[in-house]
């Protein structure tokens, strides 16, 4: 368990170093995630102890957002000022993203796996 926690930390550290060295515009941990994914693809399976370590981190993922979320108390003034554009953007943009991703996926998979349905009236 500790060995794989060390591996995860190393991936993050390497990711941070990689991003800083190349000046890449992505967060270090995301680069670390890509590194671990690449490692898993090369290895071909997930060692059970790594799965357990990952589950320990991910099972309570929601908990980890709380300290940052509490920081909203620092932005009460900004939220009071921008509540309208923020609410409209959240609702409209989330709905649009769901509609676009869903329609593109259903269109692409339909044409590639199943024949088109017969035309109406035929």
């Amino acid at each position, binding site marked *: 368990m500790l060995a794989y*926690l060390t591996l995860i930390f190393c991936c993050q550290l390497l990711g941070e170093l990689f991003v800083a060295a190349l000046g890449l515009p992505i*967060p270090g*941990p995301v680069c670390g*995630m890509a590194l671990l994914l690449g490692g898993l693809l090369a290895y071909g399976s997930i060692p059970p102890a790594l799965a357990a370590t990952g589950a320990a981190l991910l099972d309570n993922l929601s908990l980890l957002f709380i300290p940052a*979320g509490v920081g909203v108390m620092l932005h009460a003034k900004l939220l009071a000022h921008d509540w309208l554009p923020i609410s409209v953007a959240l609702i409209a943009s989330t709905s649009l993203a769901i509609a676009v991703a869903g*329609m593109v*996926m*259903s269109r692409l*998979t339909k044409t590639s796996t199943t024949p088109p349905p017969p035309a109406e009236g035929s």
Partner: protein
Amino acid sequence: MHDLRDIWTYLSASPLLHLTLTLVAYQIGLALYRRSGLNPLFNPVLLAVILVVSILMATNTHYETYFSGAQFVHFLLGPATVALAIPLYRQFERVRRSALAILVSILAGSATAVISAIMIGWGLGASKDSIISLAPKSVTAPVAMGITEQLGGLPSLTAVLVILTGILGAMIGTHILNVLGIKDWAARGLAIGTASHGIGTARALQEHEVAGAFSGLAMGINALATAAILPLVWRWFVGN
């Protein structure tokens, strides 16, 4: 003999108090969420944040004081982001067959989420800080916060907006997909995961196992896609 004030002074200076407050608030949030029958409106993170903010305001505690204890929880976001590679790998094997369709759909959804959030925020006169913090709202919180930080926005505001986006997606996603007549479980899950990350994925898993798997996959790929696309879109937006 200590009097109560001495004990309070001692405790409020130690990280233990606010670390414990965070854990207890989360447990209370989880208990309420379970009692509500997993109603997305009773999101445990949202409840815990409301509870902690109320207590900090009632005791006149600064956020910096709270964070000096809570940072031990916050720190784990980085390793947890790396660990997302594990569920991503599991689904990588499962969906390799329609890899291109999946990639194109997620990129389309990802670009829609980012561009529409920026345009609507800008069109309705939001401040620059709010717009940057809104832009990565569809991405899982640790990644979204990293992106915002890098662009000079407010990671804590992003965390809250990400959570609200997840709750919204979980609430309205099913209705939108029904109205559009999208019945394929893979497409439904992918749409919800792209737009509303982990909270949406939890909802998709309740609908159908295949929807849940595709939603988790979409969440992971969208994190990478947005981390790559958003800084470019933002540079273009600021430049104009």
